């Protein structure tokens, strides 16, 4: 069966003009299908965040084309872009970015209020979501009264509440300890399986990446490698580490050692 990708990135290049012209992404292509859980990995400065910003339509590519559910963001006005973001995309950030003065419940419904939802509908969704994420008892608390794991769960609830097509996660476990990381990752993978949610996650952490269906590696803004999940997470994790070691050391470095 011919599956239509939910996100298409074709030969995208991003160049930052400035005192020093910097090519952050170069000729990168990738497709993401509906229901896929994709991890993007790469060393610092490899262009992961730039890529994510372009997918989230905050940044526009210098060349190439991005399509989200058949829509070309490049053809939209700023206003339409904002509407696209509030309906089709959900965001999870490394440091949660919960709004400090709102309670958790209010934080979760912010995307819906932006889109002028009915209050009863909002209430229904919050209750259901809080229930499934185990946040029910915390709803009236403020972000500074809860733990990091709880904060990230709230952020996930906020990213899910408007039932977006794609969820974009930028280092969602970067600020969490191993126990909380696991909790969050299992939650994401659970959402991915039960709700057929499409998730794109940028991460440094090979353990986090091992929860995904596919891992894409980029280096210096270019495609480097791609590996798919197998039966056991343990072996998948091992393969990710193998690629990372290549990525970190650099192929050239290794061969030069051999030569000398």
């Amino acid at each position, binding site marked *: 069966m011919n599956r239509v990708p939910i996100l298409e990135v074709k030969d995208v290049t991003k160049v930052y003009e400035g005192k020093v012209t910097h090519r952050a992404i170069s000729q990168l292509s990738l497709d993401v299908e509906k229901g896929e859980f994709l991890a993007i990995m790469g060393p610092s400065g490899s262009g992961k965040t730039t890529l994510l910003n372009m997918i989230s339509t905050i940044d526009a590519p210098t060349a190439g084309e991005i399509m989200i559910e058949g829509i070309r963001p490049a053809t939209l006005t700023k206003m339409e872009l904002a509407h696209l973001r509030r309906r089709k995309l959900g965001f999870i950030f490394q440091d949660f970015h919960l709004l400090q*003065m709102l309670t958790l419940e209010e934080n979760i419904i912010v995307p819906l209020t932006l889109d002028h939802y009915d209050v009863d509908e909002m209430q229904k969704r919050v209750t259901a979501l809080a229930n499934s994420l185990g946040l029910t008892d915390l709803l009236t608390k403020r972000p500074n009264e809860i733990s990091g794991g709880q904060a990230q769960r709230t952020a996930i609830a906020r990213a899910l509440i408007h039932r977006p097509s794609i969820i974009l996660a930028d280092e969602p476990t970067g600020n969490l300890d191993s126990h909380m990381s696991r909790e969050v990752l299992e939650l994401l993978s659970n959402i991915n399986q039960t709700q057929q949610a499409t998730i794109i996650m940028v991460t440094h952490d090979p353990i986090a990446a091992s929860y995904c269906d596919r891992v894409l590696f980029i280096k210096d803004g270019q495609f480097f490698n791609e590996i798919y999940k197998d039966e056991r997470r343990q072996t998948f994790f091992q393969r990710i580490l193998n690629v990372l070691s290549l990525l970190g050391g650099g192929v050239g470095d290794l061969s030069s050692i051999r030569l000398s």
Partner: protein
Amino acid sequence: MTFRQFAYRNVIRNSRIYAAFFMASCFSVLVFFIYSMLLFHPNIDESVLGVMSLLGMVVAEIILALFSLFFLYYSMNAFLEARAKEFGVLFHLGMDERQFGRLIFLETMLIGFTSIIVGIAFGFAFTRFFFMIVREILHLDELHMYVAWEPFLLTVGVFTSAFMVIAYASIVTQKERRTIHLLRGHDEHKQRPVTVRRAVLGLSFIICSYIGMFIGVKLENLAFIIIVPLFGIVGTYYLFSDTLPYLLERFRLQKKYYWRSYSVISLSETIQTIRANVKMFFVITLVSTLTFLTIGVLASVSSYTTQYERLNPLGMVYKSTIDNPYEQQHIASLRNQLELDRLSYNLSRFTVIQQTSSYTKYEVEVFRESEINHLLFSLGYPLVTLSQGEAMFIPYSEDAISDLQNYTVRTVLKENSIPLVIDSVYPEFIFPGNFVSSNSIIISDEDFIKIEQPLIGTTFEQSAYRLYTFDVPQWMELEHIGVAIDAMVEQESANSLGYDLPFYFENAGLNYSFVLATYSLFTLIVLLVAAVFLLAAGSFVYFKMYADLERIQKHFDVLRRMGLTDGELHRLVDRHLMPQFFLPWLVALVHSTIVLISFNVLLEHLVNITIVDEVIIGFVVLITIQIFYYYLIRWRYIAHIKSN
């Protein structure tokens, strides 16, 4: 790099942030200095300036100093808090508490001294210009530039001590704040919880003070009018600290309204802003109220001047007892001066006799028809025709005209048994209030001749007086006429034992020039203080914005990712900035409106003028400036948010 250099560079390289703050403090130094230059001027004393303006200037000086103190302290603290992370790093690198104190002290003093020097330098440069304006206003021949040490010493002394107090207070405050929070930056501080009791108390205090104001004015009880504002002040504090947050929190429970669009974000932000800045809101409200009230007083003086001619239809009035030995000499000298100044005039002479009315049992002042007509003719007013037995009221105020319109009195002038029917009132206001009694009538010549017996128990000399009125079309040019007589009257009026001269004199033109001068000088004082205040309040908001920029940028970045459109962002910024800008003003506006309404009632009652028009104009101008200022700040604010 020495420690001192480090402090110096901290300030210089943050100069963009300090700029608004620096400008506001420079400007307050400048205004303070200019005022002190005028206050210490060798040619200026009470007689030139008038007690009112002199007092106004001293009060303005005190308010300026106090406001600067508060403003500087608050800005300094906001700024230090924004730099908490930087200090955190320094502490990690091994800076001790004493060094921290020294750093803050050096930085504050650096800004302080620079703004004192710059402020005084500009102030000194502008003094000549300021003196020119004052000279014009006061019609002085010369107000020369002078150099004396007093104004310098006062300004430097006041502001140096202000900056020192601020430096020490900031150090102490910062020490208390700083613990583990340092590297994390400033999180929410522990806030006193909002209580229903205080919320209710705040509202009821304010309402009480409003009601009290009206009652106080009705009773014309000064003690009442002084105590009531205290309630208002306490109530205002609670309004910001408890009542408003409480009401907004209550509103927050109404999800139907609260969860509508981005009001979720803006409302919670507003509560946060109010609670974190209670003191600032409170002080800005008080100072704004004071400014508004001064404008109210200004307006009343201004409407007094515009309504002056209506209230004083005559140029000069000279009242004399029958046995006044100076009578002929004074009248001759006045006429002489008028002729020397080539001012045309029309002199009318009245003999007014007091009689007892059988109707009220009180004295009534009786004017003669032909004498009144002489004056009315020169004023161009309709003449009076009375037949025997008829009489007419002379209105003592504008309101009296309508009050006495349909009032008929049958009475007998007891001493001479002259029966009278008083059934009309003269339709114009003729004599200024303090010359004729509120019980004055015109009778026909036939009846007037019949008056032979004086008021019971007195002689003719005691019961009658003469009135000379000079109707001068160019009455505004009368300021040099009769100055000597006016001075005698003025001196005797101040006599606590009572007025003892055989004559009384009023020169509308002379008084007018005095009123006008006082008014203009007052305007100048108020305008400068209002300008300082406006600049400071604006720079404060700007400054707070700068200190908070990082958090705000992050905040809006998250929202933008979530799909906030540009239009929505602007509206959200509006809702974020507007409370900071307009809330204290709004409260101040309500406060001062209430006070001015009651003040207006009092004025209308006492001096027969109303200030509504002038106050509205003043308020509209201020609000326009404030709105303009708001859009300026908003423009910078949005630019900063988007620059991320």
